[in-house]
């Protein structure tokens, strides 16, 4: 297979662009993002920066109890406060009382029961955030506190009555494939736990709602991942025509899955309609922890059967994902977990049983990696156990079983995607190892950092591996299409789409596509809003493929019209025309016309919808072509550990990622480095700690995030084998970086300490006292 290869050494940022002839700013170059300058100058308007004359501040009252019956709500004390304009509860919701991405099971405001600590009960509008805060304190809610269901197993075994009309099991999915009795020559097993991770995007939930004068519509500026899905859910709850709920993307300060569900959208719009004034709502950090869903904590049992030489024969697994109080995307997260649980390895036989359950813990849903993160921690921990049992290296066990294009998943689906798993592993292994820790290191280089807690002589170094497979786009028959519009006039292209730019850089990619397809330099972007058809969600590593495909399609339609016009003017067959640089050229003749000249006084305007190929639902045995495409990645982690103190410093992460084609090397590297930091967080520090359903650490003081001193050196290689299915040859690159890095780091800690470490994040006590 013909492949090209661009290596990026992340430490130095030196890049080797393969296309030296490529025009600056076109596809394949490290074009600079158009929002970069406003962002560094503080001029970029995030949703929290929105402001309107005469606006009021909205705030939300939340349940302090994980499970309780609401006996009575008295809002009169709040309404009596000077400066308070409105208090709303479930009784004021004019339309549907619930919302949800897949099942509509989450109340706009709790009415009869609260099912998690932090559930919204009421909202107020006031003239100042402090007035709003006092108004919340003045609302009296009488609760009959109930014993919360916080144990996921108890949600399955029917020992507890249903805590929601939809029941305590959100979804169960089995995968039954091949020989169900097969016992391998070598059998290894384990039970693995993954903690609850938070997206911890920096830009807190915020929105500004402007009511229409007639009271029958609203305009919302909001940070979200999917404008049209928000629009649909808001309109239903407010009993408005969807066309009367107009959304414009406010600047988004990160998302990572945490903005896929509704948070303050309905509350903010409802307060605007009730008060007939603009409403600004903005969560604080603590409220943000309560206000959005998290990564599912999971318990995964796995048993691997293999031949003595390490050839994988059968996987058995039981997965339990705690979905918390409401369904969110739990059913889709579960499908991702069960269908990826064998990892990027060929395996003929599988016996898998997965549950996503409802409890009175905080709701869980989408976070970067979406179910595959949990599955990967289990299967990669198992691969290391299998390697040890077979007496071969972690690299060799993975190479021996590496999936190839044409192999079948445990769902029976043929992997038609380019599947360079072996290359990912070999090229990662070929990346340089870090220097040894110096004999007299700077305190900042050692575990524990500047506190001078670890002694040099105590520090042990370990190396660990992780490899993963991740589906791209939505699954199970869902048509998550994307729409884009392109206008070309006087040599300037203008693009319009509803694709949520959350930081990933779609805005620069869209410009690059237009430059390459149309031969223009100037590409303007319309505001991102519901004024055009849906682009689907910025999630599932899908926007480069889907919205990129839509922009590419719209630009190509415009180019056809441009060629037709030029051809007619010159008496040529339009099929002879092509774009070369910024010119239209006759590939069989001498004609060369600058695009700017060819479009003078003309305007072409085309809209295109990109749909991926159809997928199907799984049958009761978990068989079916449920996914669109796949991407692969390998990670090797090097850590220094002080085993006595349980302190870890991640020294280096090496990675080779299957990207299809690199469209913007700088932006791609940013995704890889950023994903690795998030996976590092889940490996060694990030966890929402719950006690009886209540969060113990909803703040950045207590929920630890990787800082500049925690970030490892990253050495990255991107493997370019263009994906035939993908409109631009490029696979999504957002999720893979954060998936197998977590098990790689934990494996490295195991290697340094000899501990079993079946749980992530690894805590100091696990290293010091664990088995």
């Amino acid at each position, binding site marked *: 297979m013909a492949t090209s290869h661009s290596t990026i050494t992340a430490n130095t940022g030196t890049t080797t662009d393969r296309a030296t002839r490529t025009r600056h700013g076109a596809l394949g170059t490290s074009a600079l993002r158009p929002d970069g300058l406003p962002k560094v*100058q*503080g001029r970029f*308007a995030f949703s929290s920066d929105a*402001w309107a004359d005469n606006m009021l501040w909205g705030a939300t009252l939340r349940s302090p109890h994980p499970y309780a019956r609401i006996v009575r709500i008295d809002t009169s004390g709040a309404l009596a406060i000077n400066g308070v304009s409105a208090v709303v509860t479930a009784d004021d919701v004019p339309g549907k009382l619930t919302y949800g991405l897949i099942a509509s099971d989450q109340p706009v405001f709790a009415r009869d029961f609260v099912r998690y600590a932090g559930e919204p009960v009421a909202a107020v509008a006031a003239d100042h955030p402090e007035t709003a805060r006092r108004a919340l304190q003045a609302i009296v809610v009488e609760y009959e506190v109930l014993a919360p269901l916080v144990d996921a197993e108890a949600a399955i075994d029917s020992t507890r009555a249903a805590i929601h009309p939809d029941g305590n099991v959100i979804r169960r999915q089995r995968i039954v494939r091949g020989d169900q009795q097969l016992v391998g020559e070598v059998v290894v097993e384990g039970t693995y736990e993954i903690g609850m991770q938070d997206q911890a995007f*920096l*830009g807190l939930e915020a929105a500004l709602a402007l009511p229409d004068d007639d009271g029958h519509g609203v305009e919302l500026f909001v940070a979200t991942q999917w404008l049209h899905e928000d629009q649909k859910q808001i309109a239903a709850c407010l009993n408005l025509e969807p066309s009367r709920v107009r959304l414009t993307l406010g600047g988004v300060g990160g998302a990572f899955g945490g903005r896929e569900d509704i948070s303050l959208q309905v509350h903010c719009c409802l307060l605007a309609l009730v008060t007939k004034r603009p409403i600004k709502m903005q969560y604080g950090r603590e409220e943000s922890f309560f206000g959005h869903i998290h990564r599912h904590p999971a318990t995964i049992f796995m048993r691997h059967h293999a031949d003595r030489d390490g050839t994988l024969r059968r996987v058995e697994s039981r997965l339990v994902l705690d979905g918390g109080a409401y369904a969110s995307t739990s059913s889709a997260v579960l499908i991702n977990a069960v269908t990826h649980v064998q990892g990027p390895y060929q395996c003929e036989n599988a016996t898998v049983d997965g549950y996503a359950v409802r409890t009175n813990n905080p709701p869980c849903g989408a976070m970067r990696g979406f179910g595959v993160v949990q599955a990967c921690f289990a299967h990669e921990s198992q691969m290391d156990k299998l390697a040890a049992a077979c007496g071969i290296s972690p690299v060799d066990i993975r190479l021996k079983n590496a999936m190839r294009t044409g192999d079948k998943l445990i769902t029976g689906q043929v992997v038609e995607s380019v599947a360079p798993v072996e290359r990912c592993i070999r090229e990662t292994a070929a990346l340089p190892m870090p220097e040894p820790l110096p004999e007299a290191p700077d305190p900042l280089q050692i575990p524990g950092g500047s506190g001078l807690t670890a002694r040099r002589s105590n520090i042990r170094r370990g190396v660990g591996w992780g490899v993963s497979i991740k589906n791209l786009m939505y699954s199970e028959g869902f048509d998550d299409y994307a729409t884009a519009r392109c206008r070309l006039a006087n040599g300037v292209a203008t693009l319009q789409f509803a694709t949520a730019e959350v930081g990933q850089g779609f805005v620069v990619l869209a410009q690059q596509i237009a430059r390459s397809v149309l031969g223009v330099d100037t590409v303007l972007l319309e505001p991102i809003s519901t004024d055009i058809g849906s682009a689907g969600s910025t999630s599932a590593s899908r926007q480069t493929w889907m919205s990129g495909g839509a922009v590419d399609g719209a630009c190509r339609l415009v180019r056809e019209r441009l060629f037709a016009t030029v051809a007619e003017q010159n008496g040529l067959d339009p099929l002879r025309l092509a774009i070369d640089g910024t010119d239209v050229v006759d590939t069989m003749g001498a004609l060369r016309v600058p695009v700017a000249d060819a479009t003078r006084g003309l305007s072409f305007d085309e809209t295109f919808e990109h749909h991926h190929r159809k997928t199907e639902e799984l049958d009761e045995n978990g068989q079916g072509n449920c996914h669109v495409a796949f991407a692969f990645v390998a990670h090797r982690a090097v850590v220094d550990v002080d085993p006595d103190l349980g302190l870890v410093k991640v020294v280096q992460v090496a990675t080779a990622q299957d990207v299809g084609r690199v469209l913007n090397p700088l932006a791609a590297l940013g995704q890889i480095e950023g994903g690795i930091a998030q996976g590092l967080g889940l490996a060694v520090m990030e966890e929402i700690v719950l006690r009886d359903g209540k969060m113990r650490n909803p703040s950045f003081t207590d929920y630890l995030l990787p800082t500049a001193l925690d970030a490892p050196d990253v050495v990255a290689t991107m493997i370019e084998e263009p994906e035939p299915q993908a409109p631009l040859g490029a696979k999504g690159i957002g999720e893979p970086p954060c998936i197998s890095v977590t098990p790689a780091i934990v494996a490295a800690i195991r290697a340094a300490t000899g501990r079993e470490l079946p749980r992530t994040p690894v805590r100091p006590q696990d290293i010091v006292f664990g088995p």
Partner: protein
Amino acid sequence: MSNEFYRLRVNGVDHDVRDAWAGESLLYVLRERLGLPGTKGACEQGECGSCTVIMDGEAVCSCLVMAATAVEADIVTVEGLAVDGEPTDVQQSFVDAGGVQCGFCTPGLIVAVHHLLDRNPSPSDLEIKEAISGNICRCTGYGRIFEAVRQARDARAANKG
């Protein structure tokens, strides 16, 4: 009440703050009263550095400063760094090196890096990491941010040479 006010000096300009609740943070007053929303708030606890401003030459978290206590101080925000609207060397290096993704942490980082390079024009890589370890970035994993700071550092050194 209506005659009560205090005066803040921000980016070289005096602003009268009138009818304000005395409990307001400097971050709130900058953003909501003085029309300077470039400074961001993300944790309200001084943990993330998004709200970093320079107060009398020191980098501080404006979420932790009561605005009314800053009356004697000379305050510089991200909006006050540029000269005649042109980006500073640090701002330009963040754009060029890919140090910006969602951009929410960026204004605080830009201020922190200016503060670092003004004190220490040639920081080592480790000193760079330490200096910005109070600024959380959730998108980039910091790699391109380190590169941006190195570029700004090296360009300043080259200009002096």
